[in-house]
């Protein structure tokens, strides 16, 4: 496994840098309908084999950068020149945000604001525009921000493909553009920041469930909703893993992130198949509900994955679950600010800026489990050293 990973890493390290922007997305045309396995259905049009292999390789790569500060670290960094963007401070930094419509983005944004506060001297103004999860609004927002004399533009795109034109337009204005979380289908931004990504997340979880579950067991896959690239990649990686291991995936259901719905679905599956031996999820939101469904049905909770949200971590510890929590760290919201300042100083920055993507396991569970934080807080926020902690995140 590791051998293979390392080798693929060596093979792919080079070309990885060439096509950064296709980060978590990949373009539909690149879709490869790899063989359908047991009950997992068609492979997603978004599944890009190269991407997939690359991310799996990165899982085992060693990060460069200051230890203990994963948000400043980078995996296999390839630095780019930014001298032409050097400007004297203080700066006006503008941020076009896809939305604040879920706890992950909430925690992330608070973290970003805190990061900004740590640079009060150098950042005179931080403009934030919320696109409310609407592509067309974000396009308008970006266009709008271009008229505000920003020194740097940070974009967290709502959708990869559809935001590309707007971001390109922004690049043409000559100000440094920094993209994070989701990518865009263009190389024009100075850098694209995100953790390893969806394939890694989905793979780690699927691999864990497969390994811990009894041979030939039945797995239920719970997804939030279709059509969200980040989540699609998580599932497609899991699918690949399950198919490879010939796991019997009895169902792939959408929960809309609704716990009640989740419990009903799990309930029905338990009744239909007598028992479910493993649960895979593309996001932690409804992990608690799934666990409860098993309890209410008087069944043991099978190997399951969640995310780094505290309610799940707490449940995990209290109920002594066989569980794992791959993460999509919220600390990535700090990096764009750091990057922006570096760029405006003309310092070289990695592009793409691949952040490490730690996984919470039984061994390190306790170090992330802070009982004082609210249930929907994300443990991987890297915010404990920021001003206003913990109050700001409560």
């Amino acid at each position, binding site marked *: 496994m590791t051998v293979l990973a390392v080798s693929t890493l060596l093979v792919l390290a080079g070309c990885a840098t060439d096509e950064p922007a296709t980060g978590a*997305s990949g373009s*539909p045309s690149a879709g490869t309908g790899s063989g359908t396995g047991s009950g997992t259905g068609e492979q*997603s*049009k*978004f599944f890009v084999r190269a991407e997939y292999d690359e991310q799996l390789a990165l899982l085992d790569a060693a990060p460069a950068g200051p230890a203990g500060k994963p948000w400043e670290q980078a995996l296999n960094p390839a630095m780019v020149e930014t001298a032409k963007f050097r400007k004297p401070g203080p700066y006006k930094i503008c941020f076009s945000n896809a*939305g*604040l419509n879920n706890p992950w983005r909430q925690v992330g944004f608070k973290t970003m604001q805190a990061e900004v506060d740590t640079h009060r001297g150098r950042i005179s103004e931080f*403009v*934030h*525009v*919320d696109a*409310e*999860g*609407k*592509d*067309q*609004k974000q*396009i*308008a*927002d970006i*266009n*709008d*921000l*271009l*008229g*505000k004399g920003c020194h740097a533009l940070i974009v967290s795109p*709502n*959708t*990869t*493909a*559809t*935001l*590309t*034109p707007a971001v390109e*337009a922004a690049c043409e204005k000559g100000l440094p553009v920094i993209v994070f979380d989701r990518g865009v289908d263009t190389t024009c931004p100075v850098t694209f920041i995100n953790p390893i990504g969806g394939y890694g997340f989905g793979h780690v979880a699927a691999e864990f469930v497969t390994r811990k579950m009894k041979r030939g067991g039945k797995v239920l896959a719970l997804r939030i*909703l*279709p*059509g*969200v*690239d980040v989540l*699609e990649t998580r599932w497609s990686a899991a699918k690949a893993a399950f198919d490879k291991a010939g796991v019997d995936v009895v169902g792939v259901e*959408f929960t809309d992130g609704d716990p009640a719905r989740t419990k009903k679905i799990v309930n029905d599956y338990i009744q239909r198949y007598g028992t479910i031996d493993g649960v895979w999820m593309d996001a932690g939101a409804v992990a608690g509900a799934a666990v409860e469904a098993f309890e209410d049905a008087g069944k043991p909770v099978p190997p399951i994955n969640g995310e780094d949200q505290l309610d799940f971590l707490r449940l995990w510890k209290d109920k002594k679950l066989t569980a794992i929590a791959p993460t999509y760290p919220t600390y990535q919201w700090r990096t764009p600010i750091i990057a922006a300042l570096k760029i405006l100083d003309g310092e070289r920055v990695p592009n793409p800026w691949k952040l490490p993507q730690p996984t919470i396991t039984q061994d390190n569970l306790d170090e992330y489990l802070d009982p004082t934080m609210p249930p929907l807080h994300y443990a991987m926020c890297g915010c404990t050293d920021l001003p206003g902690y913990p109050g700001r995140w409560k």
Partner: protein
Amino acid sequence: MSGALSLPARRTPPGVFVALVLTLAIGWLVVTLDGGRLFSLPTTVSLLHVAAGLGLVAVGQTLVVVGGSLDLSVAYVVSLSTLVAAETMAGDDGALLPAIGLTLAVSATIGLVNGLLVTTARINPFIATVGVGLLLKGYLDNGYDGPAGKTAPALVQGLGYQRIGPVPLSFLLLLAVAAAAWFMLARTRFGHHLIAVGGDPELARLSGVRSNRVLVTAHVLCALCAGLAGVYLASRLGAGAPRVGTEGLYDLESIAAVVLGGTALAGGRGGVAGTVGGVLLLASVDAVFNQLEVDVFFKQVIRGVIIVAAVAVHARRAMRKAS
């Protein structure tokens, strides 16, 4: 004879425009005091773009609402249209016209289904269109896991980003469509019949109006407008987006715009001009709050209040004139 001695013969100008002017005036003041510029070029352009998308849908919605019906499936029609358009074009300018044609054909068909369900099958429009919406949602969820297709570059540069001064092409398209709709209501038999059907379907039938045919046509037109909105969004986004319609809340927002414009939800009274005003009002509120960086959720609260308040004012006027 309830209506005895009510509104004067001349239509009173929709109060929404008053509200619009006030909003812009106050907004401008506040934004300026806040050190921003409400009417800067980019802001204006953004405002008009937001208005264009919603406006196209709302104009269509006006037609069905005036006819006493309702279309809650528009959001999905919009999403589907972006996909049909973008996938057919596949980035090729040559395929531009066929693609648009196909898109409009598809949406028209959906409108036809809506219309038939409401008229022939006598299903309440609310349920009928929600049902059709679900059908489409299933198709989209099942068939697409993200943006697909590629809009023809010509369309992107043209409809998507081309503008004359501060006015985007798309907004001109909206104005054109609105004018056409207005003309239709005022000067064609169909228009007269539609308003009559909205006022009292049985009465219209007794007067020899083919009520069903009229209402079906209205639904087709509504869906066509949604289709156009889809084409526009495709040109904006450069690709088809399976969730863009629902993300934009086009179903409820369009109805909100329509009633803001003074069109009676019960049908039989109202017009396109008001709707355009309503759309601009909503867009302006958006723009102002954007400039002030007001919290989205607070904005949503305000929107809710505005919509209810505006309709309350309309109702009050009507009442005062009626009593």
